[in-house]
C-alpha cells in the first residue's frame, strides 16, 4: 500500500474519533427518547475542563475524567430542566450550547498560550509490528481504541441487555414503559448523563490529543456534525462509526487533493464535499422506510410526566 494513503488513514482516524464519541453518546440519549442539541456546548466544557486538569495535575487520566465529569454536569442541567421541569428539549439544548460556549471561555482564560505535548500513542506489542495493518490498527492513542470499544459496547448494550431493552422501550413509548413499571425519568436521566460524559470525552480528545491546546470555540461545530451523524446512522451504533469515518475521510481527502496541487476546484467547493456526501449517502440508505421507523425512537423530544 502506498505510504501516503496509509498516513491519510491515520489522519482520518484522528479526525473521526471526537465525532464517534459525541455521536455514540447522543445516540444513547436519543434512544431513550431525549433530544439534546447541546452537544457542542458540552464538548467545549469537556475540552476546557480536561485541559485544565492536565495542566494542573499533569495526569492525562485525570484530564479525561475531568472532561467527562464536566460533560455530565452540563447534561444534568439539561436533564433537570427538560425531565423535571418539562422545558422544550430542542430549545434547552440550544441554550445549553450558548451557556457552554460562555462557561468554557470563562474557565479557559488563564489557559491561552499554555502548551501540552498531547497523549502518547500506545503501540500494542507485537500487533503494531505487523506491516501496514499494524500501523493502521494498533498504534494510536488510547482514546481511539476506547472509541471503538465504546461503539461495540453500546451496540451490545442496546441489543443484548435487559437494561438496553428498557432504555429502548422508554424511548419508543414512555407511557407504555411507565405502565409496565419502568422508571422513565430515571432511565432518561442516566442516558442523558451518559451522553454528556461522551460529549465531554469528545472534548477531552480535542484538547488533549487532536490539537493539544485550549482556544475558545475550538470544537468549531463538531458537536453539530455529531448530532447529524446520529440521524445519519438512523440510530444504529455501527453506522455511527461508518458516518464519522465517512465524514472525516472526505474532509481529509479533500485536503489531500488540495495538497497534491493537481485538482483545480475552488477550495470552498472542495470544503462542501463532506456535507454533500453525507446528504447523498443518507438519501441512498434512507429508502427502506420500515427499517428506519423501527430504529427511530418514537417518543423522541416529547415531554413525559408520570400521571399516577
Amino acid at each position: 500500500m502506498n505510504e501516503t494513503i496509509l498516513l491519510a488513514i491515520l489522519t482520518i482516524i484522528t479526525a473521526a474519533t471526537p465525532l464517534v464519541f459525541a455521536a455514540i453518546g447522543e445516540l444513547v440519549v436519543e434512544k431513550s427518547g431525549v433530544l439534546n442539541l447541546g452537544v457542542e456546548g458540552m464538548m467545549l466544557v469537556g475540552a476546557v475542563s480536561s485541559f485544565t486538569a492536565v495542566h494542573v495535575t499533569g495526569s492525562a487520566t485525570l484530564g479525561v475524567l475531568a472532561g467527562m465529569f464536566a460533560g455530565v454536569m452540563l447534561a444534568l442541567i439539561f436533564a433537570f430542566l427538560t425531565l423535571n421541569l418539562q422545558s422544550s428539549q430542542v430549545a434547552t439544548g440550544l441554550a445549553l450550547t450558548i451557556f457552554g460556549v460562555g462557561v468554557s471561555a470563562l474557565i479557559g482564560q488563564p489557559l491561552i498560550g499554555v502548551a501540552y505535548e498531547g497523549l502518547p500513542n500506545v503501540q500494542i506489542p507485537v500487533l503494531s509490528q505487523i506491516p501496514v495493518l499494524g500501523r493502521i490498527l494498533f498504534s494510536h492513542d488510547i482514546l481511539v481504541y476506547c472509541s471503538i470499544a465504546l461503539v461495540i459496547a453500546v451496540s451490545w448494550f442496546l441489543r443484548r441487555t435487559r437494561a438496553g431493552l428498557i432504555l429502548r422501550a422508554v424511548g419508543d413509548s414512555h407511557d407504555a414503559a411507565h405502565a409496565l413499571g419502568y422508571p422513565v425519568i430515571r432511565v432518561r436521566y442516566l442516558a442523558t448523563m451518559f451522553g454528556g460524559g461522551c460529549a465531554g470525552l469528545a472534548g477531552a480528545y480535542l484538547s488533549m490529543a487532536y490539537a493539544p491546546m485550549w482556544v475558545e470555540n475550538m470544537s468549531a461545530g463538531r458537536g453539530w456534525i455529531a448530532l447529524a451523524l446520529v440521524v445519519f446512522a438512523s440510530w444504529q451504533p455501527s453506522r455511527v462509526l461508518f458516518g464519522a469515518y465517512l465524514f472525516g475521510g472526505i474532509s481529509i481527502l479533500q485536503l489531500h487533493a488540495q495538497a497534491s496541487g493537481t485538482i483545480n476546484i475552488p477550495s470552498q467547493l472542495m470544503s462542501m464535499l463532506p456535507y454533500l456526501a453525507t446528504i447523498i449517502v443518507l438519501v441512498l440508505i434512507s429508502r427502506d422506510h420500515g427499517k428506519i421507523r423501527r430504529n427511530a425512537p418514537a417518543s423522541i423530544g416529547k415531554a413525559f410526566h408520570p400521571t399516577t
Partner: protein
Amino acid sequence: MISLQPRAMPSKLMGYLAPVIALCLTLLSGLVLFAILGVPVGQAFHAFFIEPISTLYGLSELGVKAAPLILIAVGLSIGFRAQVWNIGAEGQLILGGIFGGAVALYFYEIDAWYVMPLMMMAGVIGGMLWAAIPALLKTHFNANEILTSLMLTYVAGLLLSFLVHGALRDPDGYNFPESRLFHDAALLPIVMEGTRLHIGAIIALFVVVAGWVLLSRTMLGFALKVNGAAPRAGAYAGFGQKRLIWFSLLLTGGLAGLAGLFEVAGPIGQLLPTISPGYGFTAIIVAFLGRLHPVGVLFAGLIMALSYLGGESAQITLNLPVAVTGVFQGLLLFFLLAADVLINFKIVRKARGQL
C-alpha cells in the same frame, strides 16, 4: 418534598406570569454570578436590560436585531407544530441574501422602483429553493430533514464565501471579499430617520399577524396542529403529510430568505462573507421561547435581541468579557424555558414516601 401536579386546564394567569417569575429568578442568579465575578450588580443589570434601550437609537436597534429573529421564528413555529424539524433556517437565510444581493448587483446604479420588489422576491425564492431540497429529499427519499437542512447550512455558508471571493466581488475593491455597496434603490427604506430601523421590521410585524391568523383561523392551521399531535389525523383534515412537509419547509425557507435579504439590503448594505451571526439557529430558541405562537414569538424575539444588545453594553460599560454575557444569556434562557412548567403544572408539597 416538592413535586409537580398537572393542572386540569393550562393556567392563563401563569401564561403571563411565568416570564416575570423567570426574570426574577434570572436577576437572583445574576446577583450571585456578578457577585462572584466582583461586578457591581446594579450596574450589570442596568447594562444588560436598561441601557441598550434607554435611547431612541437603542430602541431602533432592538428592532433591527429582533426583526430577522421574529421573521424566521414565526415560520419555524408553524413548521415545528407540524413536526417538521427544519434546523437549517440559517442556510436558507444565506441563500436569500445571495439571491437578493445578486439582483441588487445586477441592477447596480439603476434607480427604478422595481429593484427592491425584485430583490425581495429573489430573496424569498432563494430561501424557498434551499428549503425545497430537504423537502424533496424527505418526501421522495425519506431522508431526515434534521440532517439535510443542517448540512445544507454549511454548504450555503461556503457558497456565499465562494461568490464574494469571486463572481460577486466588488470590481473596484482591491479583490477584497465583499461586494459593491448597494445603491440607494437597492437599500430598504428607513422607517425612522437617523436610525437603521428599516421597513423589514414592519413587515415582520405583519408576518406575526398573518401567522397568527393562519394558525387560529384557517383549515390549514388546524391541519398543522392536528398533524403535530397525530400524523394520520392531518390527512382527514384534507392535508396529507407530504403537503404539510412541503408547506412548512417552503414557508420557513421563504421567510428566512426574506430575513436574509433584509439583512443585506438593510443594516449591512452589501454582500459579505458572513451575513448572519447565527440568526437561523437563534430563531429556533425564539420559536420555543414564544411557545410556538406568533405573538409569543414577537415577545421572545425582542427579549432575545435585548440580551444580545445587553451583552454588548456590558462589554462596553463594565469591561465584562463576552464569555460572561454568554453565561448570563444561557441562564436567562434556562429560566425562561423552565418557568413555562407553571402553565401546565402546579407545585405541590407531598409527604415523603407518597411517590
